[in-house]
């Protein structure tokens, strides 16, 4: 097979960080090539260098054997490289259809033909298997849907190279299946693809070859068939495979002794986002929320966290009914909330890692009582170490961190205040295997120490493994709570959801 893309000796420095150091990368026609590595290994940077977002500090890029140097993604796109970047990069003030066709709208003379555009958008989404109102603003859909829209856009550009940087991070099984189907079809049509994902099963299912990066350096490239899972993890993390044994086994075996609920929602609901529901979370218990995309998990979490105002029902915490529940009072009572969209709702990009971590604690103390510098430095250093945040520099603006490390900073912010109820909405999204295991272990440990956790994840495995009880949602309604161990299985959850379906 001919090489479509050939990158040699790529180096990229950011202030204080060498993100890529002499990396070689080759993409062959028609192959699906996975780029693997820990958070911050340099995967996204490699993509951005290839597509002209960043200029490389050294190295050559050949496209179809000819040297190229793009100055913007538009240039790369024109040359046949279509990309879905890691964070959803669409403009949510425009409609779905406009986002799909921005820059290449069907036109009538100088004017955009909106009717044709909507029709084409509909057809495109249909083809991929998504049913949306294409005239609605993109902002009215969940992140997962937005991600699918971004993918559809990239696919429709009909490029010879398609790059997908963690496209599946917020998708659940069905959606992933849809995506992988599309990828296979494109591969058959001869499109070369770069696929970045932290889900090893997906990678093994779809990729022909793998390239592993670590710390900005190339570790090697292998055919998928030649590289076992443990060996891959070993290459990624640079640790011995034996060390990693326990990663899959998380200590979920603990018992909830205290039966009195720490938090109890009764008929809590909000018009237009989630139907009134009852849910109790006991001390030291991990409650998982399972459901399909858009089923209302986020909304449930937000209501409990006080991020949104409920318009029905009551919420009791520690036996007391909460009135005027909002993020501030919630934090004061020990309810912590890591929102699902870290870029827009979680982090303050311009502030440093340390400042972002200290934010909730400082908010609770009020502005006048600043956290003493010594204590602050100690805490920040402690959590940077504990969560393995890299680079371990508390003074780095958080926006310069890789996605996974940003997630850890957000988590650290809330762990710092030692909450009693920790609400995690997709905390493991975009996190590498090692870190994911770290976070899962952390959740297990925290709950063993008596902290209650509400855990939302698109990965059913993760939810079933960690949770003591699982609330199942569908169509913005809480339809069941699975209590016993035997109930908390993958199949049972799927059955519950399907059983309530009926129509479709």
């Amino acid at each position, binding site marked *: 097979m001919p090489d479509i893309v050939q990158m040699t000796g790529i180096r990229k420095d950011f202030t204080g960080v060498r993100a890529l150091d002499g990396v070689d990368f080759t993409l062959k026609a028609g192959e699906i090539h996975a780029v693997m590595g820990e958070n911050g290994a340099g995967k996204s940077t490699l993509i951005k260098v290839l597509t002209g*977002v960043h200029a490389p500090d050294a190295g050559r890029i050949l496209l179809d054997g000819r040297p190229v140097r793009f100055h*913007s*993604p*538009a240039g*790369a*796109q*024109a040359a046949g490289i279509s*990309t879905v*970047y890691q964070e959803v*990069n*669409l*403009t*949510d*003030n*425009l409609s779905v259809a*406009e*986002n799909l066709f*921005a*820059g290449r*709208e069907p*036109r009538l003379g*100088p*004017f*955009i033909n*909106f009717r044709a555009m909507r029709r084409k958008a509909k057809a495109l989404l249909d*083809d*991929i*298997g*998504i*049913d*949306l*109102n294409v*005239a*609605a*603003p993109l902002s*009215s*859909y*969940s992140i997962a*849907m937005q991600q*699918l829209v971004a993918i559809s*856009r990239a696919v429709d550009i009909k490029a010879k190279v398609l790059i997908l940087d963690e496209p599946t991070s917020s998708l659940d099984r*069905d*959606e992933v*299946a*849809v995506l992988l*189907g*599309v990828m296979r079809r494109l591969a058959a049509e001869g499109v070369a693809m770069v696929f970045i994902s932290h889900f090893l099963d997906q990678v093994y299912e779809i990729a022909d070859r793998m390239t592993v990066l670590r710390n900005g350096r190339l570790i090697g490239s292998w055919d998928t068939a030649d590289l076992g899972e443990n060996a891959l993890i070993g290459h990624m993390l640079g640790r011995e495979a034996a060390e990693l044994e326990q990663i899959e086994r998380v200590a979920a075996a603990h018992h909830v002794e205290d039966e009195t609920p720490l938090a109890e929602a009764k008929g809590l609901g909000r*018009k*237009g*986002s989630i139907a009134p529901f009852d849910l109790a979370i006991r001390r030291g218990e991990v409650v998982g929320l399972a459901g399909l*995309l*858009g089923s209302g998990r986020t909304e449930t979490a937000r209501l409990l966290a006080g991020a949104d105002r409920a318009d029905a029902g009551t919420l009791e915490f520690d036996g007391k009914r909460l009135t005027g529940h909002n993020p501030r009072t919630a934090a004061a009572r020990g309810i912590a909330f890591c929102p699902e969209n870290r870029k827009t709702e979680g982090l303050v990009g311009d502030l440093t890692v340390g400042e972002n971590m200290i934010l909730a604690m400082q908010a609770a103390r009020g502005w006048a009582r600043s956290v003493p510098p010594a204590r602050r430095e100690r805490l920040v250093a402690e959590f940077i170490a504990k969560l393995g945040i890299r680079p371990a520099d508390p003074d780095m603006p958080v926006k310069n961190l890789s996605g996974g490390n940003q997630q850890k900073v957000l988590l650290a912010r809330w762990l710092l205040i030692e909450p009693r109820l920790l609400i995690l909405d997709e905390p493991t999204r975009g996190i590498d295997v090692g870190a994911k295991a770290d976070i899962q272990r952390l959740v297990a440990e925290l709950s063993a120490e008596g902290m209650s956790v509400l855990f939302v994840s698109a990965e059913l495995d993760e939810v079933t493994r960690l949770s003591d009880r699982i609330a199942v949602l569908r169509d913005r309604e809480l339809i069941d709570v699975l209590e016993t161990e035997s109930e908390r299985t993958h199949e049972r959850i799927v059955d519950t959801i399907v059983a309530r379906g009926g129509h*479709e």
Partner: protein
Amino acid sequence: MSTVQLTERPARSTLFDGLSRYLPISVTVALLVALYLGGVANYPNFGNSQVVAKLFIDNAPLLVIAVGMTFVILSGGIDLSVGSVMAFSTMACAWLTVDAGIAAPVALVLVLAFGTGWGLFIGAVIHRFEVQPFIATLVGLFLFRGLTLQISDTDVSMREIGFFQWGMTHVDFGNVREGGFWLPYLSFVAIAVVIIAFAVLHYTRFGRSVYAVGGSESSALLMGLAVARTKIGVYAVSGFCAALAGVLAAFATKSANPLANVGAELDAIAAVVIGGTLLTGGAGFVLGTLAGVLVWGLLNTLIAFQGNLSSWWARIAMGVLLLAFILLQRVLARSGEKRRA
């Protein structure tokens, strides 16, 4: 083909999807009408159709710069140079025709080209060197006021140039003395600018990328849109509009005054924002800007008809009316959103 069909209802109900973003502007228009009716009820002669026509005569240049400003603000920028560029353009018309003796149509083209060129230049500086728009265009505000004063520090008359008679030539609608009204050609130019701007913003690729860039510049870049062209383009549009407004002012008064239009950029920004466009970019309508300019003009007309306010009470009244308007707009739009939620 996949077998699963993924579906999701948008968070907002579909019936209103298309309409929801028109809510702020509908509220603005409704309040505008209410304001007008209030004037009619309270002041004799306010119902005279010329009162409405007058809004399009006296505010024609403001309307034009506000339209240009709408492009810039929608893209997430701001242009403080418009007032000075406008004054400079009027002065340049006078200078080219009266002093340099260049044929008026040629002068007009030169002035418009210069305004556009300035916009291109400052847009390029903003984009290429990542200079904050506020400061880059503030340079324009100072620079063109200075250049205007250097051309002439007194007012200059252009009445001898026959060409400039064109702008105030009337078209009468009905008998002006009996309830009809008249509009000069320059009002039609302003209205045409609004219509063209509307078409460009909503129905062309350039227009949509203005919204996209305003929504998120980095996303637009990563989506492969022509961000540079768009960002530079909006300043060119604004520069053109400012120059055109200057030309309209030349038509309107057939004179140039070095101190004209001081603070016009703020009037324009105010009109745009009152019209519901978000200063952060990405959301708003050029028709909202039209409404904003009309609100601005109508408030001034109301105060003029009241006629017994001292200078300071007139200012206070303007502030209070504006406040009431904005609060109402805000409250109505909010409760409208809630009702639909």
